[in-house]
């Protein structure tokens, strides 16, 4: 058996064998006490009865001057002795009885039991006098005779334990081993699995005690499978998504190489550069997403959402001006939230950039930061074509692009927005802007604790 030292099997076997041994020994101790008591009563009764017998018998029969030595007729006889004294003389005694009275005169004033030392042995002696008080009878029994009986009894009880305990341990070992079979089967099943096999573990005949564990394990496997599937899909999607910008760069570069006139070559080279910028932006978005997906909680510092929005709007303003778009910010008061400033910037830039990109030239894009009860609210609204209901539902899908819009984008922006909002414990929803008619994205974030009270 090459079980590890702290195996469950060993613990169970030791526990069962130990408990059985303790119980057995307890029972033996109880029996010992009880039996000793009963034995004492019984033997004392016998001594008293024998003494009474001797008293009456002596009155009728023993008249001799010489003491009579009664023969020892049983192997236990040496351990029992008696004396019959008549008028101060030893009239009758067992062969092993001493010459002197078995109990000193001082202690024989009345009938009763006494424990005395005779020839170095402890004796239990019953002393009695006849009715005329001329006959003194002592009936004694060696105390160790009683102990021998008790010891024999105890031995009879404990010997089977000595033999039985190893047998019991063996039986328990077998039983526990059998009982733990499902556990070992589970272990074997798991050990034989390939690391990427994440389908649920199915075992026949699962004991009720193991069912929660198995359910927990399968739940975990399912979550890991979902996670890994997501990762796999993300990697594949990311790779595919990079193919288009690369294909564009390649095609444009080849066009530039094969161009006959300068205008054509120049156009192709500019397109090549634009393709590189697009690929770069895509890579940055992918990195942001993967960092967000790694699940590291964003740093929690107090960030003024209004100030952050001001910075982002300022940074994107040239892009808006180039297309004659009217980009405006409405942020009357500071809106402190707990969060990561860089991530909140990314969030804002994604939303505003998206609004600018999808709005026609000359359109209005409005950014609003305000306090809303216990939270901070960020609204980015545009005058673009907005989104159909179905498209809005699919926004969360990675790489979902609003098709036919003419703008080039990876469709990663919304995923990034959703993840950043979730990481900050907020909510994001999209709808139609009542004022501008285009898409309106509303982000609710919890206000930072101190300022929420102050507000």
């Amino acid at each position: 058996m090459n079980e590890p030292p702290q195996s469950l099997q060993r613990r169970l076997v030791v526990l069962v064998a130990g408990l059985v041994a303790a119980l057995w020994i307890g029972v033996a101790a109880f029996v010992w006490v009880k039996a000793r008591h009963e034995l004492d009563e019984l033997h004392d009764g016998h001594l008293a009865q024998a003494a009474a017998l001797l008293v009456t018998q002596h009155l009728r029969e023993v008249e001799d001057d010489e003491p009579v030595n009664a023969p020892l007729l049983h192997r236990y006889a040496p351990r029992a002795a008696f004396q019959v004294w008549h008028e101060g003389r030893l009239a009758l005694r067992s062969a092993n009885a001493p010459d002197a009275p078995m109990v000193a005169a001082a202690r024989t004033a009345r009938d009763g039991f006494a424990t005395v030392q005779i020839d170095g042995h402890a004796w239990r002696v019953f002393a009695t006098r006849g009715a005329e008080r001329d006959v003194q009878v002592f009936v004694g029994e060696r105390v160790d005779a009683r102990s021998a009986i008790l010891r024999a009894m105890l031995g009879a009880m404990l010997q089977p334990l000595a033999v039985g305990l190893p047998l019991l341990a063996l039986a328990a070992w077998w039983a526990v081993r059998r009982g733990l079979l499902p556990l070992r089967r589970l272990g074997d099943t798991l050990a034989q699995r390939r690391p990427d096999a994440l389908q649920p573990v199915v075992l026949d005949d699962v004991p009720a005690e193991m069912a929660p564990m198995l359910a927990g394990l399968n739940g975990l496997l399912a979550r890991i499978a979902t996670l890994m599937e997501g990762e796999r899909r993300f990697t594949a999607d990311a790779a595919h998504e990079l193919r288009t910008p690369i294909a564009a760069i390649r095609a444009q570069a080849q066009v530039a190489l094969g161009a006959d006139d300068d205008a054509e070559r120049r156009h192709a080279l500019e397109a090549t550069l634009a393709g590189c910028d697009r690929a770069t932006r895509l890579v940055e978005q992918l990195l942001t997403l993967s960092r967000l997906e790694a699940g590291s909680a964003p740093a929690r510092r107090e960030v003024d959402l209004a100030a952050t929005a001001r910075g982002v709007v300022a940074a994107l303003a040239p892009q808006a001006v180039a297309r004659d778009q009217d980009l405006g910010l409405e942020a009357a008061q500071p809106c402190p939230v707990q969060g990561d400033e860089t991530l909140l910037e990314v969030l804002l830039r994604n939303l505003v950039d998206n609004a600018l990109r999808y709005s026609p030239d000359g359109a209005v894009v409005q950014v609003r930061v305000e306090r809303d009860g216990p939270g901070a609210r960020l609204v980015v609204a545009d005058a673009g074509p907005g989104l159909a209901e179905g498209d809005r539902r699919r926004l969360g899908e990675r790489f979902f692009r609003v098709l036919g819009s003419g703008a080039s984008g990876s469709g990663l922006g919304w995923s990034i927005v959703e993840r950043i909002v979730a990481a900050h414990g907020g909510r994001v929803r999209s709808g139609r802007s009542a004022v501008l008619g285009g898409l309106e994205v509303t982000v609710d974030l919890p206000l930072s604790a101190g300022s929420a009270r102050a507000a």
Partner: protein
Amino acid sequence: MRVLLAEDDPLLGDGLRAGLRQLGFQVDWVRDGEAALRELRAQPYAAAVLDLGLPLKDGMDVLAQARQRGLTMPVLVLTARDAVPERIRGLDAGADDYVVKPVDLHELAARLRALVRRAHGQPHERLRAQGVVLDPAGRTVTLDGADVSLAGREFDLLHVLMLNPGRVLTRDQLEQHLYSWGREVDSNAVEVHVHHLRRKLGSALIRTVRGVGYMLARDASGGP
């Protein structure tokens, strides 16, 4: 050779159109699936380059519906998806070739030429008829072994006729083969090109079917 390019990515579409034009194709570029299907039905394209991730109508649907409507021109599917099941799905849906982005422009052009050639039952890379040999890849023509210099449109016209030997092509059909959208076509452009071709290659090669159009006589010898 006039081809339809269906690609929604502005940069890639622009690059492919410019590149294929450099390599002698007439390219019409559409950016969504609906337009692709519409144009495939309306124009006699020699071939189509179809991106799968198209707006409004997925490329796969465009392909399936085009085939359903009996359109037989070769279709080359261009996609970012390279998983084998995707390729199988594409080919089963009626694609003649399946190319994963990014693709080399020259390779794309060669594949298109091969698709067109096979679609016209021409097993050989070079087309031959009555001593005239046309090399679509090199865009060269020889008559009895001697190089003949042809203008772009003349080459394209000869190419179309040689791809369809023994078939009468109307003037309208030839114009549609020769010109992508937005190119002004002179009313007698085809006649002018035929005239030039006859001057350079001999008058027997291209026959006029009065009131209908032109045809290239089948090569009596049959083989190369």
